[in-house]
């Protein structure tokens, strides 16, 4: 046992006070990020959007824990960039409905048969259409960056632990799947190395295909071993529930889901406005009651659940405030939607920009993870 004292002190003992676990409730991070994302959908001003991205990036850099799942942020940045580039490419290749006078270049137009009317390939590329596509793409990219921020700040397995009891078993399955992927990658690397040991080339698509079957076999065996271990540790123990309760659960859940469907339909159709919202709310309530009742079947208790504390309220509140203020400003401040025809340089509206900066609050209040 002497060996552990030397190597193990890295993350230990730092934050174990009575307050509970280090870190913020993962739900708070998601709500904050969704708040910023909602704000991004309210504007096309590139300066405000850039400010939103910078805000989320700063918080990620200061609060991100040193865990493997937290490394996904750069992947989301790349994805956002790809979305922007694709949007611009479509604007160039397929043309744009935006009328414009500043022709940048004219691509050769591909004549299309008459049944493809309304689609244009090539043709004039105007500065207006490019700028419009850029604003539009940037909006989507900002949304993605915000989701990426939530992904790298909130621990996915702890988020799943906050699920209601009835969904617990599904949650465990997802957690297992999350740990499964890294194992699979390690397996592929090991088996490709083994191919080299057999004197076969270890690169190329054929090499990858060849290890496919052994990798899947290994994954299957590991899954079976894990299932055995989970079973032996009490996974899936259920309490006896009277049949009446079981039937009520089923009825509530099914009825609730039907209500949600019908309510959503009502809300989206023109004439259903009157019954849509109440039906939706009733459906949600019934489904939640069903989930709660279904939780009785599960014996399970929770070990040190993440508490929704004052910091969580502050973090959530800052995200919600940004969303609310920008929604409000979008209705009143034309600077949030800079004109494209005619082309004008976007200006930075002062008050919305200040509102966006509220999103930096988590960098100050969130507890720092040990690094």
């Amino acid at each position, binding site marked *: *046992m002497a*060996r*552990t*004292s030397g*190597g*193990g*002190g*890295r*993350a*230990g*003992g730092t934050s*174990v006070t009575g307050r509970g676990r*280090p870190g913020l409730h993962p739900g708070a991070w998601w709500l904050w990020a969704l708040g910023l994302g909602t704000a991004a959908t309210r504007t096309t001003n590139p300066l405000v959007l850039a400010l939103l991205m910078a805000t989320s990036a700063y918080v990620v850099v200061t609060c991100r824990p040193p*865990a*493997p799942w937290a490394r996904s942020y750069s992947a989301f940045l790349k994805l956002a960039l790809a979305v922007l580039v694709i949007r611009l490419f479509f604007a160039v290749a397929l043309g744009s409905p935006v009328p414009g006078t500043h022709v940048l270049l004219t691509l050769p137009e591909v004549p299309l048969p008459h049944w493809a009317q309304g689609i244009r390939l090539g043709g004039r590329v105007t500065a207006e259409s490019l700028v419009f596509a850029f604003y539009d793409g940037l909006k989507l990219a900002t949304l993605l960056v915000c989701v990426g921020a939530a992904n790298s700040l909130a621990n996915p*397995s702890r988020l799943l632990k906050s699920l209601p009891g009835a969904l617990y078993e599904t949650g*465990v399955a997802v*957690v*297992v799947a999350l*740990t499964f992927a*890294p194992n699979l990658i390690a397996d592929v690397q*090991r*088996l490709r*190395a*083994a*191919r*080299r*040991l*057999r*004197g*076969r*080339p*270890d690169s190329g698509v054929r090499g990858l295909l*060849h290890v496919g*079957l*052994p990798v899947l076999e290994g994954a299957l065996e*590991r899954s079976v*071993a*894990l*299932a*055995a*271990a*989970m*079973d*032996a*540790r*009490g*996974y*899936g*123990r259920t309490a006896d529930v009277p049949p009446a309760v079981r039937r009520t659960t089923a009825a509530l859940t099914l009825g609730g889901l039907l209500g949600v469907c019908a309510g959503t339909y009502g809300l989206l159709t023109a004439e259903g406005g009157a019954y849509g919202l109440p039906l939706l709310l009733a459906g949600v309530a019934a489904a939640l009651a069903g989930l709660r009742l279904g939780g009785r079947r599960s*014996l*399970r*208790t*929770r*070990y*040190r659940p993440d508490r929704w504390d004052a910091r969580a309220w502050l973090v959530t509140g800052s995200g919600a405030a940004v969303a609310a203020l920008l929604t409000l400003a979008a209705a009143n401040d034309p600077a949030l939607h800079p004109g494209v025809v005619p082309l004008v340089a976007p200006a930075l509206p002062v008050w919305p920009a200040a509102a966006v900066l509220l999103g930096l609050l988590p960098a100050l209040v969130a507890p720092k993870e*040990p690094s």
Partner: protein
Amino acid sequence: MIRFEDVSVTYDGAAGPTVRGVDFEVPEGELVLLVGPSGVGKSTVLGTVSGLVPHFTGGTLRGRVTVAGRDTRTHKPRELADVVGTVGQDPLSHFVTDTVEDELAYGMESLGLAPDVMRRRVEETLDLLGLSDLRHRSITTLSGGQQQRVAIGSVLTPHPRVLVLDEPTSALDPAAAEEVLAVLQRLVHDLGTTVLMAEHRLERVVQYADQVALMPSPGAPPLLGTPAAMMAVSPVYPPVVALGRLAGWSPLPLTVRDARRRAGAFRDRLSGLAAAPHEPAAVVRPPAPAPAPRRFRRKTPVSAAPRFAAEVRSLSVRRSGVQALRDVDLTLAPGETVALMGRNGAGKSTLLNALVGLVAPTTGEVLTTGLTPHRTAPQDLVRRVGLVPQEPRDLLYADTVTAECAAADRDARAEPGTCRALVSKLLPGIPDGTHPRDLSEGQRLTLALAVVLTASPPLLLLDEPTRGLDYAAKARLVTLLRALAADGHAIVLATHDVELAAELAHRVVLLAEGEVIADGPTAEVVVSSPSFAPQVTKILAPQEWLTVAQVREALG
């Protein structure tokens, strides 16, 4: 606490029962060790206790197993989870969550214990197993010994009355194994936990057992008795027992301490005999590596020495921010066997991988038979150097032995039939159509070895070859490797098995934190080390004997 009543288990599709006539009782608070050669059904017997056999594996169980009064026929594994804790051979396949603390709590969450009880037990268990520094760590970043302790801890938190362990120390280095065994002993002595355990490395565990259940051969009913009585008749036994049998001591000693007390007269008898040279040392090898600072060795003219099978010069490897190897120098002569030892994570596997070109040196140079391995095409390298990895199954792709051999011949560009001839020599009586997965651990290792030897590489590397092998399979491996060394193959073994190193190696290289801390003849290096000395050395110190075979030969 655990009662087996005339239990037999027949798996679906098997011709006969895997185990039969199991009829004994494990009393409360005892540590019972299940002993026997590979393939006698030890894991099956362990599985019946937790109910995984037959509820999870399928098959038919006859007779009755009761654990704490619960019949496993009517209770599923999950309904036994509060009385039985099971840890399998591979701790990694046991973990459900990703951090140490969550893992310890998982079992209790499933059982529905109150949050304050869970919190208290997690803290207690962290202290009991010495894991409190690691509580927030991700499980995949832990060493093998730490993982094994977390696995044991994770089944301890629900306070089971019975603990079932399948080879808990096989994959561990000697120090980590002692950590785990110390924990088990504490559980048995202080908390009255009943432990049923199977383990091949008897030299590590037999002294902790209160009773031994011996399964002498497949299908034979197990016998229960005191460790000394069972060791006297067991087909598998540790070196201390082998020495005791040789010296005719009765009752047999089980610990080095017992044996030393008895060994006085025996030592006198031996001291008259010339300490026979360590058997494998009679091989041509280059000038003994000087224990002097390594940088002088580089100045010796290379041309004067015999052609090296491998040369490593001031090799450093850095991988993802970790210094895996630091300034390592090593030379290997043809016909020489070197044991690479050190803790889990000391850099043994990295060094082997560097020798075979899977890892490129950060600085320094590696030459295997004159080639730089990581710049050589795999199809050329395969005839210069061969590695049997830790998991021999990784090397095997095909679904029959024949197909595997044909592929090996093609890969090595060897005469068709070369590999099959090797397999027949090394593993007589293996049917052509057998799936490599259906072979036993030892057979699979031998098949992988045959595949590697098809190309007849002058340098042969083995990573942890004795994991999961019983003494008989190990003895066959030793004979085989000795013959290869005599043929002029240079062999490097990375191993935790001190007894294997003592039997086989001419030279031992100790690694710690990526540096070579000792490099010299086996007798010199292991005799001076408390954790790497084999049992015979410890018993007969200060005389320098390494193996029972050596002693037997000297006695004539």
